[in-house]
């Protein structure tokens, strides 16, 4: 089975000479469909850089990145943008939604950018909102939504269409515990439906939702393991920790 995301000996260096910063050094990572991988490490360890390279926002200095078997090297900027629209969804800690667009329009935006007609894109966004349990907030603007609702809509936007790679950078960092858990459950559900997710976090409790944890320190992936069953799984009202 072709991994949804594959990083082969990826290195990223910012600057050059004496001021060169090695953000990533020889990182290998493979994420299959239905799998959620948590990337853990202290601040400045290279977690966010790994996500941005995986999502084609940045290009590695050396190494290869493949999304659904397609190498990103040599792609033009327009092709990379198309890849993001069709295959990759991003969820950030904050500032996820575009002000001035309603919840429905925010979710349908990647589809419209890809040339889907507005009516079809809106219908797809409405279905996504139904599944997110936010159908009644379809016409609300971001500043009329709570933090948890905004992040759920961001996840809806990251997954709308046929995208199978979800990259989340501290997705619940700005949320309270309950809203954060709700967001993690949505990500877990997406993986159950066949998406692959990479979650950057420094929170062990969030990492416990993942199938696998990659530890990054000073740009080097030092260990990969299954996370221990965390207490949050026991607190999850009789539900198993979403694996």
């Amino acid at each position, binding site marked *: 089975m072709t991994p949804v995301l594959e990083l082969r000996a990826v290195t990223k260096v910012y600057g050059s000479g004496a001021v060169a910063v090695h953000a990533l050094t020889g990182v290998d990572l493979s994420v299959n469909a239905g799998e959620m991988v948590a990337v853990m490490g202290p601040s400045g360890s290279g977690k966010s850089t790994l996500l*941005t390279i995986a*999502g084609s*926002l*940045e290009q590695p200095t050396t190494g290869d990145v493949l999304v659904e078997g397609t190498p990103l090297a040599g792609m033009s*900027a*327009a*092709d990379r*943008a*198309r*890849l*993001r*629209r*069709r295959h*990759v*969804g*991003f969820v*950030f800690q904050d*500032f*996820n939604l*575009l*002000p*001035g*667009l309603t919840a429905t*329009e925010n979710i349908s*935006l*990647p*589809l*419209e*950018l*890809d*040339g*889907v*007609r*507005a009516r*079809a*894109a809106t*219908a*797809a966004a409405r*279905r*996504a909102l139904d*599944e*997110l349990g936010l159908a009644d907030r379809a016409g609300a603007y971001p500043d009329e939504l709570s933090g948890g609702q905004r992040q759920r809509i961001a*996840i*809806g*936007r*990251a*997954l*709308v*269409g*046929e*995208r*199978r790679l979800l990259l989340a950078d501290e997705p619940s960092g700005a949320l309270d515990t309950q809203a954060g858990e709700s967001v993690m459950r*949505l990500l877990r*559900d*997406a993986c159950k*439906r*066949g*998406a692959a997710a990479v979650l950057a976090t420094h929170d062990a409790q969030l990492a416990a939702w993942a199938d696998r944890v990659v530890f990054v320190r000073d740009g080097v992936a030092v260990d990969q393991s299954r996370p221990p069953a965390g207490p949050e799984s026991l607190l999850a009202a009789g539900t198993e920790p979403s694996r």
Partner: protein
Amino acid sequence: MTVAAPLRPVARAEGGLPARRAMVRWAWRMLRREWRSQILVTLLLLVAVAVAVCGGTALYHAPPPADPTLGTARDVWVLNGQDPPAMTADITALRRAYGTVDMVGHTPERAPGLARPVDYRAQPLGGTHTGHLLAIHRGRYPSGATEAAVTTGTAKLLGLRLGGSIALDGHPRTIVGIAENPSDLTDDFVLVAPAGGPPPRSVSVFGDRHGREGPRLTTVSQRLGQGGNTDQVVITALVLAATTVLLLLVAFVAAAGFAVLARRRLRQLGMLAAIGATARQVRLVVTATGLLVGTVAAGVGATVGLLFWPLAAGRLEPTIGHRIDRFDLPWPLIAAIVVLAMAMSAAAAWWPAWAVSRLPVTLALSGRPPAPRSTHRPAALAAVGLAVGLGCLATSDRRNPILIVVGTVATALAILFAGPPAIRLLAAAGARTPVAARLALRDLARHPARSGAAVAAISLALAIPVAAVVVATAAQATPATGNLSDRQVLVRIPQPGDPPALVPISSASRLRELADRVGEMAAALPASTVLPLDLAYDPAAPPELSPTTGQPVRHAQELGSARGDSEFAMAPAYVASPALLRLAGADPAAIPRSVDVVTGQARSLVMFAPTRTRDLEHPPTVRVPGPRYTSLPDTLLTVGGLARRQLVPVRAGWLIESGQHLTGPQVAAARRIAARAGLTIESRDGQAAVQTVRASATAGGLVLALAVLAMTVGLIRSEGAADLRTLTATGADAGIRRTLTAATAGGLALLGVLLGTFGAGLGLVAVYRSDLAAFGHVPAIYPLIFLVGVPSAATAAGWLLAGREPASIARRMPQ
């Protein structure tokens, strides 16, 4: 939760129409939500469009709707009324030949206390060709032999009013109306009914020959004709050129505004790119914002301009001297201005859009401004633009309009591109200044998109008045062109308003008296010489009546140059004296005896007999460079030609040439002597206006530059709120805040002044390279005002006004 609906995106990477629609929709929503952030740019564009629409419409109406003399007719025959049966026969012949003709009778009548006679005019209302030449302003059209209408000017001159009476021709008439010539509000006359007026001394017959040859007429004293009217085309081109310059200036300010907007939306635009928007789609968001701002401003501005137009038209009519139809609007011109404003606004947004779209997505997502990029490319572009601009201006030789336009645009672009490197140099130079000034200058260098646009706007705002001051001074200092040199006075015997070929019949004693007065004028001028000017005259031709004064005149020989289908531009033939030949650039000894005509005109000349009864002749002609000044005689009949045609000289005037530049009081004294003697004089035009032009250009340029500066500094400092917050947190006081704003304003002003003056100066040196002495005549106060005054005023104003910033400036700007 993957939604796997059967969605069918377009094959192209750009997403096609749905993607563009989504981007424009978001831009529109953001504009509606954050309209306050764009209010400055919108207002600026709005005012520019309103001024352009109102001013353009005013200029469009500057020429009268119909020729004040010809109306809508293409041909007018002025028939002499001395022989009424012959005149009636001529009118019948004209009507038979050309169908519909309009007739206006003229009878000059002397009025006590007035130098010029009053024209009793017998003219019907609503003529086919003369409809635009008569309107009843108040009251009604006169009927019968006992009623008349007068113009406002005539009523004022003679102390008349509605219901009063006038009897200049010996027949009392009740004034029943106030009349006017809508195409010439200075045209004063007494209107009488055609059947009820005095016998006309002359009749103007208005018609259209449609290019056909006419019947032989025996009483025609003058024939007028008009070619195609190119005024509107020229005015439209001028308005569009001026609007382009105005909007270019506004566009630079708008570019700074859009750069600030793009900076504020940096993270949102980064998010857009992260979810798959291409660079072109990111650019579209910002450019669409510019287009939407331009559309709103252009629409509202055009409406405001049109609303103000009726008010402006009312004030304009007395100045331009004709009535204006308020509802006759130049829609194509207005549409062009609106489209131009929208395009300029979109173009102004394109630069920041381009800068944002080139940012790495991760940098945009972080909201951090990019590190300053290399300035080699803008510097190289500035050098290329300057080389092209100066090359074009130098080779234009002040004559080729295309090279002048290309050179000016290239030089302006060079100034634009020189902005970012100059800002970096300034920031480097200010590395050792106190922290507030250093921070302000470094901030300018870190955001070249907005500060570069600001410098370009200020440079352009100052380059225009600098160029105006130098050109005005050069025009004064190098009097090589114009109507006359600043040492010459032209004295004329023909009455003002009469064609120059109509010379009043004067006795020998009267001529001696006039010559004495001219001698008196010359004696009052230093080292002056007097050159008599004679016209060639056929002694066998009968005398005519002056259409202006009704007095007998001699119609001198004329030469015509063809300017279309059977149309001729007429010029009186002066008798070629050696001095006149030299003035025309000819060597008297080199003119062959067989030559009849010496002329500076390039076109082929034909000779008419005054009565127009002979066939046209093509006299032997020699072409010479012609006189340097436009009012000097340029068509001369040689003594041989005079003798061969049995013509005689008749005195028409004198040319007085002084050894020194004439002062205003000297010209005024000569004018007084001429007025007493019944002569008219002409001196060099525009000398008094030069100082006014210089002062107006300087004042206007300063106001414009400081206004542009205030706007751009306001925009830039509003983005510096985060810096202020940090500075305040570290203990900075109000003095630091003032210094920040003052250094920003002073830095931008200094760069704007240097680049604007330098660019304009180099361009002018290229234009005047053969006459650089003109620059030495520019009074020192003007460069001082520009180079020292503007940066000082900007710094002081920045310091003073920064203290008024509200406390909320220290809050983080909303994202």
